[in-house]
């Protein structure tokens, strides 16, 4: 009986599952700071209104901006409502509703920066924005160096810290995150006009008809105007856009508005992957040097140091081994600037991974040093060597042989661990893969290319280490020749 009733009620109220990225997603959809288990935002309110007009129950599915299209196609939700632009490349993958909002772009710079007054001043300067948006495509078309971010908060913070020169975002996000920041200012007026539409799966034409009708309805009856006014997003562009629908005379002419198209070509992609690979190599080799150099004093301190030093070294090792490297990088990148140290992303990754791997290397060294028999020390001492000389000339070279295979192992995995740098927007291989693949949909082919790059780095390294190991071992295992005849 209960079951029947329950099913009946679900049947009566169909759901509208909608996907959007709520992290740094204000004012579209974001976590209510006053009530962290709820989402708010003008699009949240708009979808509720749309669903009501459709006689459905809205259900929000939090997702990732960069994977919205693939998540929609996988069926994680029915529609994308996240300030989505009807670009030519997306049109090949998904279906678009009628537009519901006219957006503009706003360039932001530091308050004390008078060099940049418009997008034309940005040649050869690094501009941050959300990857795979109208803004990022505009920058690409104009050949302006672009740094992709996962959310506006990180982009505007890096602008403050002078890691980048300017940030460009859709006006709604800019109004919420940058307009009232005393350290930043808008550079020039908002420019270009583009459309926000709702994204649907190809073939979902019935749902599209439903959504289009609902959009017309909430524009016609003023519901959308009320919502936009509440969020401070009502402006001249919306008045012009809504007028024909409100008067019931004609529908919007989409052609009047700018849409950008992502152009994907393999040469460009491979070139960007190569650059990303170079950054990956730089980070890996640099952090390797830090790890190898810093690991030794850590190992010796923990092994032979006085008790306070031993404690300090152990603390270091346990801290860096016991917390995720991702958290350490985020701390170095966003936390250290509080103390006035703002390193660029690649250097942060290099230092962070170096400090982290030093903890691991120190343990490899310590085990290797402890494996050298005490007799080697005694023989050195009895030949008149001091502890430093004995360590440098006798103990260390032997320990190095023991340490070599586990060190190789660590460094191959260090090459792969550089991928955590994507969390702080460093353009290394993993970031490149994610952004290029999301922009193009070429997950498979780009995946193969990226794997090839990683292998091209780690295989020679493993080979080199094996050669070195073999050379060292062959010496020790030289064939014992026939013993000489007795004298």
């Amino acid at each position: 009986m209960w079951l029947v009733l329950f099913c009946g009620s679900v049947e009566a109220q169909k759901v509208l599952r909608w996907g959007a990225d709520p992290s740094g997603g204000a004012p579209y959809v974001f976590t209510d700071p006053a009530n962290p288990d709820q989402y708010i935002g003008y699009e949240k309110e708009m979808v509720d209104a749309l669903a009501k007009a459709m006689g459905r129950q809205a259900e929000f599915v939090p997702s990732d901006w960069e994977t919205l299209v693939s998540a929609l196609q996988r069926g994680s939700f029915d529609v994308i409502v996240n300030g989505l632009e009807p670009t030519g490349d997306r049109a090949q993958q998904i279906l678009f509703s009628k537009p519901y909002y006219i957006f503009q772009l706003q360039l932001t710079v530091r308050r004390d920066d008078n060099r940049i007054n418009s997008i034309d001043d940005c040649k050869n300067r690094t501009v941050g924005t959300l990857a795979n948006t109208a803004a990022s495509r505009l920058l690409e078309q104009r050949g302006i160096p672009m740094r992709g971010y996962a959310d506006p908060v990180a982009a505007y913070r890096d602008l403050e810290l002078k890691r980048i020169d300017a940030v460009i975002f859709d006006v709604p996000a800019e109004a919420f995150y940058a307009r009232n920041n005393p350290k930043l200012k808008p550079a020039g007026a908002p420019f270009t006009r583009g459309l926000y539409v709702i994204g649907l799966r190809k073939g979902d034409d019935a749902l599209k008809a439903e959504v289009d009708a609902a959009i017309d309805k909430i524009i016609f009856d003023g519901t959308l105007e009320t919502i936009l006014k509440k969020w401070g997003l009502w402006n001249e562009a919306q008045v012009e856009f809504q007028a024909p629908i409100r008067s019931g005379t004609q529908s919007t002419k989409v052609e009047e508005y700018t849409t950008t198209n992502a152009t994907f070509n393999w040469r460009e992609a491979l070139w960007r992957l190569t650059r990303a690979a170079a950054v990956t190599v730089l980070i890996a080799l640099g952090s390797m040097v830090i790890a190898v150099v810093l690991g030794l004093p850590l190992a010796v301190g923990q092994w032979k140091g006085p008790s306070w030093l031993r404690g300090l070294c152990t603390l270091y090792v346990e801290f860096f081994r016991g917390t995720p490297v991702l958290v350490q990088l985020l701390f170095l990148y966003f936390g250290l600037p509080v103390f006035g140290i703002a390193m660029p992303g690649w250097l942060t990754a290099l230092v962070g991974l170096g400090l982290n791997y030093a903890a691991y290397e120190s343990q490899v060294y310590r085990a290797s040093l402890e494996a050298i028999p005490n007799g080697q020390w005694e023989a050195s001492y009895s030949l008149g060597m001091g502890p430093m000389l004995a360590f440098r000339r006798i103990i260390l070279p032997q320990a190095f042989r023991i340490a070599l295979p586990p060190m190789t192992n660590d460094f191959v995995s260090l090459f792969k661990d550089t991928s955590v740098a994507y969390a702080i927007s460093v353009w290394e291989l993993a970031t490149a893969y994610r952004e290029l693949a999301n922009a193009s949909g070429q997950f498979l082919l780009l995946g193969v290319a990226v794997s090839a790059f990683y292998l091209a780095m780690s295989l020679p390294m493993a080979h080199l280490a094996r050669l070195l190991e073999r050379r060292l071992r062959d010496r020790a295992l030289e064939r014992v020749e026939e013993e000489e005849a007795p004298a």
Partner: protein
Amino acid sequence: MIRVTDLRKRFGNSEILKGITFEVPPQTVLGVIGASGSGKSTLLRCLNGLETISSGTVEVETVRLEATLSHSEYRKRVKDLRLKVGTVFQHFYLFPHLSVVGNIIEAPVHVLHTPKKTAETEASELLESVGMTHAARRYPGSLSGGEQQRVAIARALAMHPALLLLDEPTSALDPRRINSLRALLRTFVDRGHTMIIISHSMGFLAGVADNVLFMEGGVAVEFGPTDEVMKSPQDARTKDFMLSADSTD
């Protein structure tokens, strides 16, 4: 002159050396004999500064080590002492990452700052005198026990020590090689070297040592010319040891 006076060594509450006194005249060999646990190995480690002495003195030529010295002065004299005393360990402790020549020239070049060429010339002379010229470029891992011992002797002599210590030199050798080692050591004594040889084998010491010190329980039970100690031991404990040693050797 090598002189040890009332040497004592304690580990915690147990006294391992209970007042040892002896002299080694230049160009002679002292054999130290005794069962395991008699304290002979600890004595050797006191003589090359690997153990800190608890009381008494150790003199090797101009270096005089006293238990009563301040910590820093003691350390300084241990450094000096180690330059005067060379050690051939029971298990040799050759440096496995260095070639035979590398093992021999390591300390002369880096401790005495002898020019590398000079050190190499000396090393090849030493290798010739121990009969190991053929193995100069080989690595210790590829040498037999007897060969490693000869390299270890050459390595110790390369520092021109006033006193050469050998710890159980016969333990890794078959009887034929024991004879040739005995002959080798005697040639070094004839060239002016002074040695202390720790051994549990009276048979080996008989042909190489001028004097013998018999130890038991950390005490020097008997000390005298090798012939006399062997022919007519004064102490009952020495007699017992030699009877049991003769049957096993």
